[in-house]
Each structure stands twice: as structure tokens, then as C-alpha cells.
């Protein structure tokens, strides 16, 4: 897997966003300073602890980390693929002897790295507003890697199916963002009436935000609202399902590359 060709493409993908911090890292940094300032301090000061023992700013941190991570992983992969298609320089990759698996893993891997870097930046910004201690480090890292890769994988599909740049905006703004905002980023599921709790469980983002919250703060809504016999395993079940989903999405990416969907005539 770590062939010279794979490393070359992976490095090219990393350099593309690392050399453009104004376009890639500054926007989420500024946005999240605003989130923490407005929602956390100005509004959050008037909101009771959503969960006993966890103040509102601290409660916000995992959700905002997830929001930044997945939207940047998605954006990077979809942009990189679509821009390459638009200007046809993705042909440089497609006409090379890289295997389809190597191509996809390089694109997904680099985009996941961008998502993770943004996640860390947001966590560091959060740390400026509130003390944070990591409760379940290994679980947190595993979850972050999985969701970053998952959305990078979705981003590849987005970049392949998009017909113009507006399509990318639509995907991010009209699909991703609403799901995240209703994914228990800004509130706890325990604050919702039971009907809406159940409806929320249909939203896959809930599990991602909840898993990261569990990793970071040691608190999980699932532990509270899942049936007692199941609750203890709930965060691990979420991680397991997300991992399988990620593998599935990457397999779809590889298949699309193999058949040349959106890439070849």
C-alpha cells in the first residue's frame, strides 16, 4: 500500500491544502472562534448546564470538532476530485500505474488528515475558552479517524457526481450542515421530548457527535437514553457501525474509480 506512487499522490494531496492555510485552516478557525464566543460565552452564559457537571461551552466542543472535521474532510475530497476533473489534471493520476485502491486511499487519507487537523485546531480554540481534559483518548482518536475518513469517502463520491461547483455547495450546505446541526451538536438529546429523541436516532450524525463527546468528555447521550442492557456498549456499537460504514463507502469509491464513473468517457 505504501508504494512510492501512493506516497507521491498522498504527499501531493497534503501539500495542496497545507500550502493554502488562508483557504483551508483560517476559515474554520475564525468560524469556531465566533461559535465559541457567541454560542458559548454570550448565549451559553444564560443557558443552564445541558448535562449535569458539563457547562455549555464544554458541551459544545465535541460537536464543533465533529462539524469542522467532517465538513473539511468532505470539502477537501470533493474539491480535489472535482477541481481535478474540471481542469482535467486528474488525468495525471488516472493515466499513472497507481492501483485504484491506492488512488482512493491517497485521496481519502489526505482529506481525512485535513479534517483531523481542523478538528484539533477547533479543540485548541475551545481550550482557550474552557479547560478540557480527554477522558477516553484511544476511543476519541479511533472515532475521529473513522468519521474523518468516512466523510472524505463521501467527498470522493460528491466530487465524482458533481456537475459544477454549485453541486458541491449544495451537498455541503443542504445535506451535511442540517444533519450536523440536528445531530446534537448544540444540545443534548436528553433535552428533547422522547418522540424527537427517537427521530434524532435516525440521524447518523448523532452517533458521530455522541461518540466524540464520549471520547472527549466521557459523557454520552446514548448511555442515558439507550435501553439499559445495551447502554454500556452503545458508544462502541456506534464506533463499530461507523467503521463498517466507512469501509463500505471507501469500497464504493474504489468501485467508482474502477468503472471510471465521472472520470472517463
Amino acid at each position, binding site marked *: 500500500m505504501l*508504494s*512510492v*506512487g501512493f*506516497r*507521491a*499522490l498522498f*504527499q*501531493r494531496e497534503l*501539500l*495542496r491544502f497545507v*500550502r493554502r492555510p488562508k483557504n483551508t485552516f483560517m476559515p474554520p478557525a475564525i468560524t469556531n472562534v465566533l461559535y465559541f464566543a457567541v454560542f458559548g460565552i454570550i448565549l451559553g452564559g444564560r443557558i443552564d448546564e445541558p448535562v449535569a457537571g458539563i457547562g455549555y461551552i464544554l458541551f459544545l466542543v465535541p460537536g464543533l470538532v465533529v462539524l469542522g472535521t467532517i465538513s473539511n474532510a468532505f470539502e477537501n475530497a470533493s474539491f480535489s476530485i472535482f477541481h*481535478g476533473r474540471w*481542469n*482535467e*489534471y486528474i*488525468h*495525471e*493520476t*488516472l*493515466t*499513472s*500505474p*497507481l*492501483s485504484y485502491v491506492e488512488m482512493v486511499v491517497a485521496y481519502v487519507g489526505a482529506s481525512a488528515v485535513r479534517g483531523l487537523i481542523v478538528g484539533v485546531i477547533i479543540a485548541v480554540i475551545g481550550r482557550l475558552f474552557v479547560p478540557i481534559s480527554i477522558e477516553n483518548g484511544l476511543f476519541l482518536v479511533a472515532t475521529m479517524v473513522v468519521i474523518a475518513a468516512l466523510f472524505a469517502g463521501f467527498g470522493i463520491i460528491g466530487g465524482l457526481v458533481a456537475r459544477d461547483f454549485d453541486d458541491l455547495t449544495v451537498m455541503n450546505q443542504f445535506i451535511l450542515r442540517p444533519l450536523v446541526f440536528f445531530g446534537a451538536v448544540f444540545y443534548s438529546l436528553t433535552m428533547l421530548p422522547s418522540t424527537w429523541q427517537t427521530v434524532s436516532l435516525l440521524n447518523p450524525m448523532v452517533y458521530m457527535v455522541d461518540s466524540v463527546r464520549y471520547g472527549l468528555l466521557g459523557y454520552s447521550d446514548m448511555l442515558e437514553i439507550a435501553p439499559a442492557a445495551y447502554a454500556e456498549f452503545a458508544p462502541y456499537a456506534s464506533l463499530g457501525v461507523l467503521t463498517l460504514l466507512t469501509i463500505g463507502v471507501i469500497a464504493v469509491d474504489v468501485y467508482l474509480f474502477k*468503472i*471510471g464513473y465521472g*472520470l*472517463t*468517457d
Partner: protein
Amino acid sequence: MPPAIETTDLVKEYGDLRALQELSLTVEEGEFFGLLGPNGAGKTTFINTLVGLVRKTGGEARVFGHDVEDDYRQARDAIGLAPQEFNVDRFFPIREVLMHKAGYHGIPEDEAGERADEVLKRVGIYDKRNERFDWLSGGMKRRLLLARALVTEPDLLILDEPTAGVDVQLRHDLWELVTELNEEGTTVLLTTHYIEEAERLCDRVAIMNEGRKVTVATPDDLKTRGTDTISVRLEDAPSVTPSVGGYAHEATLEGDRFEVRVDDGGSTAPQLLNDLEAAGHEIADLEITRTSLEEIFVDLTRQDDRTTTRSDAPTNEESAGDEGAETPAREQEGLA
């Protein structure tokens, strides 16, 4: 050694449109092979099938014996492509673009850097190595496409209309460079609209039209398929066209200028002169004009009389290419 390119009954369909129609073509290792044809003939579709930018609908295609789909990695590794379009990574300085491309082909970073410098020097844009593609002039962009094709040291170099829209100097530079590469052992496949280019560079050419192979021949062979024109100026200006032998395909008279179209001007001219003198005409001067490759090309690809022209000099390749030649013309513009 297997041929550099070998396709058998290669088909590419876009819905109802057949861009490649049972195309069987062989390019031997070390050859300088030309692919000629009008716009929409399927030249670029053919090339893109080899490099993985088009998925074939049917038939087989191999590069140095490697199937372009089953053994796509080996097939692609052997090819360096300089396409028509400026499909270059805009994010990086051109030296890095070349290093990335070399890297994708498994060349370690240090060596990739050396190769990038080497090919940039070879195509004459080394001093622009730290510029991005968008900042290069049109001619430099064309040079970079060639450099990118060369940086992986391919066994098969494919040039898709490399001199379209370039100035004379660059055209000659490119010709010199690809000739050198071919002499060093690189197989070259060149598509072009310029007959002069094919005539000057290619060992053999294939003429394509509507996704089919019309013929494959050396440029010299092709020329012999055309007719020559013997133009004779007569001292008197006869009132009726002189009668000549069956060797003449066509004879025309305009004033004192008598023109006869024959297969081989050199060997037919003495016979023609004898016939004219025997008929009482006095010859003032004589000129023989060989058919240009361009005229033959136009003849071969002209749809309305193509079968007639080709039937004059049938070959094995033609027989394959003739299949379905009567199919009405389809619009293929933009697919190439």
C-alpha cells in the same frame, strides 16, 4: 517482444454513436507511427482507450502485451502521453508537477527531481521551473506537456496533435526531439492533421475516418496509391482533346495545355509523348506532378467517393477497414 500497441476489433460506443468501429491496429516496438484523420475520426478516443481515460465497449487493446484493463498498471506505466488539452495541475510549480507525475510512476523523490530538471532542460523551459502552468506562454505549455510525458521515461510516447497551433520554431524543435527519442528506441505514436508532419516523421501511418481504419501504409506507399499528372504544353493549340492510350485515367485540354492523369508519371510520359507526336502534335514542354500525401488523405477520407479511391489499391488492412464503409456518416465532432 509483443507489439507496442495491438488492438483487435476495438469498439467504443457513446449511446448510438460508435466512435471506434472494430479497429484493429498494430504498432511495432520502436516504430514511429502516425495516426491521421479528420476531426472526429476517433484518434483521441483510440489513444484514451490505451491510457485509461476511455473505457472500451468491446474488442481488445494491449500495450507491450499488457491488456489495458486487466493489466492496466503495467500498460499505463509504459506510456507517456502528451495530450491535446492543457490538463496540468495548476496548484504547483511545473517542476513539482513533473516530480509528482514521476512519483506516481514509482520513481523516488530524489530521482524524480533530477528527471524533472533533465526533461525541463531538454524541452527548453528549465528557467521556468518554479512557475506555475498558468503563467507559461502557449508554446511553453506545449513544451511542458511533452516534458511531462518524458519524465517517466516511457517506452511508448503518445503525442496527440503536439504541434497544433504552435509556431514554426517550436514545431521544428519538437520534431527534432521526438526524432531523437525514436532513434534512442522509444516507440512513438503521433496523431496529427499535418500531412507534412506525418510524411517527415513517420515510418508508417494509419488513416482513420469515422472510427475506422481506412488504411495503414508507409508515407511513400501511400503516395504511390495516388495518381500523377503529366502536363504537356503543345506548340499548336488543338481544337479537340487529343486521343491517348488506356493508361490515362483522365485527359483535359485547356488552350495549349494538355493534362493527363496516370498511375505512374515517370514510366508513362515517354509513351504519352510518342502517342502525341504520332498524332501530329509538337511538344513545347512537359511537367510531371506527383500527388501530394495531402491529396491522397483527402481522397481516402472523403466519404462520398472513398470506396472508389480505395478500391484502386486494396490491401489487407483496407479490407478490414472497409467493413461497413457504406454506413451513412455520423456526426462525431467533439468526441475525439
